[in-house]
């Protein structure tokens, strides 16, 4: 795996992660987001509907939490989770927790980390964890990490302990990784902890960077756990300690404004769960990310007519939890869409917008039909992917500030 960065203004990162996968032939543009799955399937989608999305991210994310209860099956299968899930041609990143599911704190010990799966809590020591990863056979995976110390109300002692434990787990992972045949060729990512304590963040980053890891996972910055201003500061402090030529992935950040802030702070990769959480509440992503003003909507705005659909909120609460609708979405459950025969987002080329109307989506939600999830997921993944293309374009043409104002609608 090799990260090829373009020579841009210091602090901005734009490039390609090449040489990916066991074959070494896949590549992923950064900044980028991973394709989020449950147990190897993009939520709601079968392979055909997934195909309708066109170009998919090269790297697929499998949260271990969504597949942990099937370890025995994977071991009997002997060819890894990607193959079992029918994901033949992808690069698989296995993270620990599911970013879209709650992870109650307080269960981690010095020797184990608790994983929250559909079948309940699973306690993992490093050997058990590595054995699970051996069954999954990922291309990348994160080390076992103690992410328990949530900023609000964590004592300094607890924060230090989580950094210590995480480093200890990493060292043990490195050793076991080297002895595990199924993980030959897989990249191990170290995890940076430290909650909201700058000193601990820096320490965690420096120490993790000394280990033989392929990349870095930034934990404890999840939306809803930390506010944007603090996140921005701490991420900058962390990435300053990390080698330039290894990728940095932040866990649990999906809201477009927070993504942009993390990109500015030197993050390369994001979990792609935001389209899914929007889908689950019957919402379609509709925020703008086109940097060239669209003539029609410019006229409309001049005439005081705003694009119907977005929330009228101009801000979202900092510690917003995942269940709440953001200003980047439109809620198709709303009665105002009952008769609206326009596509979700005018000009969007996704399967849903090419073939269906807001009225139809509204109908599907009102009647609680399964197709609602399918169509919304198709739109949301497509919209989000296109947003990331726009991020890369903005970086390439030095227009990140313009993109920020477009996305925030200011």
């Amino acid at each position, binding site marked *: 795996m090799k990260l090829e960065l373009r020579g841009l203004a210091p602090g901005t990162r734009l490039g390609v992660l090449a040489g990916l996968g066991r074959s070494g032939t896949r590549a992923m543009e950064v900044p980028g987001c991973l394709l989020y799955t449950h147990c190897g399937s993009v*939520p709601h989608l079968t392979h055909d509907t997934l195909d309708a999305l066109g170009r998919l991210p090269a790297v697929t994310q499998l949260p271990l939490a969504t597949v942990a209860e099937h370890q025995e099956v994977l071991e009997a299968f002997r060819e890894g989770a990607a193959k079992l899930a029918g994901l033949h041609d992808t690069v698989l990143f296995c993270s620990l927790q599911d970013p879209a599911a709650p992870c109650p704190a307080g269960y981690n010990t010095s020797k184990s980390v608790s994983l929250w799966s559909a079948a309940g809590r699973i306690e993992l020591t490093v050997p058990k964890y590595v054995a699970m990863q051996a069954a999954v056979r990922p291309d990348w995976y994160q080390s076992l990490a103690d992410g328990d110390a949530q900023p609000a109300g964590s004592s300094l002692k607890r924060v230090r302990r989580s950094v210590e434990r995480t480093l200890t787990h990493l060292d043990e992972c490195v050793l076991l990784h080297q002895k595990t045949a199924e993980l030959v060729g897989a990249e191990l990512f170290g995890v940076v902890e430290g909650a909201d304590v700058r000193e601990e963040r820096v320490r965690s980053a420096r120490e993790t960077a000394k280990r033989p890891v392929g990349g870095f996972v930034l934990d404890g910055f999840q939306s809803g756990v930390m506010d944007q201003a603090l996140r921005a500061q701490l991420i900058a402090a962390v990435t300053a300690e990390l080698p330039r030529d290894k990728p940095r992935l932040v866990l649990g950040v999906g809201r477009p404004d927070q993504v942009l802030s993390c990109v500015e702070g030197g993050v390369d990769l994001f979990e792609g769960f935001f389209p899914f959480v929007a889908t689950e509440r019957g919402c379609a992503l509709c925020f703008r990310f086109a940097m060239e003003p669209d003539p029609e909507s410019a006229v409309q705005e001049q005439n005081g007519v705003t694009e119907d659909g977005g929330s009228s909120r101009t801000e979202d609460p900092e510690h917003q939890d995942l269940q709440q609708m953001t200003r980047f979405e439109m809620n198709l459950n709303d009665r105002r869409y009952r008769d609206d025969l326009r596509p979700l987002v005018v000009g969007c080329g996704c399967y849903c917008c090419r073939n269906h109307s807001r009225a139809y989506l509204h109908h599907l939600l009102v009647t609680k039909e399964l197709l609602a999830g399918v169509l919304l997921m198709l739109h949301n993944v497509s919209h989000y992917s296109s947003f990331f293309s726009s991020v890369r374009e903005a970086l390439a043409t030095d227009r990140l500030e313009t993109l920020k104002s477009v996305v925030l609608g200011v």
Partner: protein
Amino acid sequence: FSGRAIAGAPLVLRILAECPVSKARACDMTLPHCTVNTPVFMPVGTQGTMKGVTAEQLENLGCQICLGNTYHLGMRPGPELIEKAKGLHGFMNWRRSLLTDSGGFQMVSLVELSQVTEEGVKFRSPYDNKEILLSPEQSIAIQNSLGSDIMMQLDDVVSSTVTGPRVEEAMRRSIRWLDRCIAANRNPESQNLFAIIQGGLNSELRHICLEEMTKRDVPGFAIGGLSGGEEKDDFWKMVTLSTDHLPREKPRYLMGVGYAVDLVVCVALGCDMFDCVFPTRTARFGSALVPWGSLQLKHKQYAKDFQPIDPECTCPTCRRHSRAYLHALLKCDTAALHHITIHNISYQLSLMQSVRQSIIDGCFPQFVRAFMDRMFPSREQYPRWAVDALASVGITLN
């Protein structure tokens, strides 16, 4: 679309082959939106959606016609919106043929305290508690707005387990309602109105209904009032009685039938079209249909079974996924239901394709024997009603 051979005739039936032994036929039925090959199984997309399957996926499976439900769509989102969206075809973006039922069955089976009078069916809307009357005229008006290729008359539905004078009353009223439906149809040039033969399990009443309804100039006939919990022995006798007295050159639609054995037998008895929620509904319970029965994929026995549902099936699910994966996925994402729905629809459509081909090739009786042999572990387990029904049309299973 240039499929219409005769101007003003929105349905043209071409009989390609007839089984020399049984009453089975293979036909091409040309409708305004596309030609449908029969015998055909029509999946049911009740509320303007085939559950988790997109219109494109359904098309790719080879489906030529599916069902929408007048009662449900009439309630939500309502005919005005659908008409504005260019009919049900436009609303759900389905380019091929659509059949809508009248709403009569749902009236009786779903809605509590519905009251049938000569006027129509009176009931209370479950959504806003308002009292509504579904008359023949209203049902046809809604179906005209939906724009389906085939519409069903509003019939006075009684359960097949009901006996006594109510059965005759319902049969006679259905005839009168048929005439009102015919008169109410705004689009006779582009929408086909089918009659529904009633009469319960009473041969005399069925005869009367057949005699009367076949006097009306409708493009097709459905056999109704069956598949409602009656004895299979009574069921098949009414089916074969009906096809004996329906015109050869018009399609015969047996409503509510979808189990594989029932389909094969009723094709032998002369039926062309079938619909049933069973294959798509059972999929959502994790049950996959196969030529030898069904697999309950939620069962532990499939946890490490790395074969596809059916190694010989060519559907998208079987080409890519194993029973083990589906078993695991069933615990964590709705996509599992879609995979199984796709497989079950494919199974039904392939079955009918094979049935049709065997009729065209002149080997339908052999097909039936092979089918039964695959489906049941031994001859002793062949359902007696099926053996009798097939024997009645010259197909012996020995």
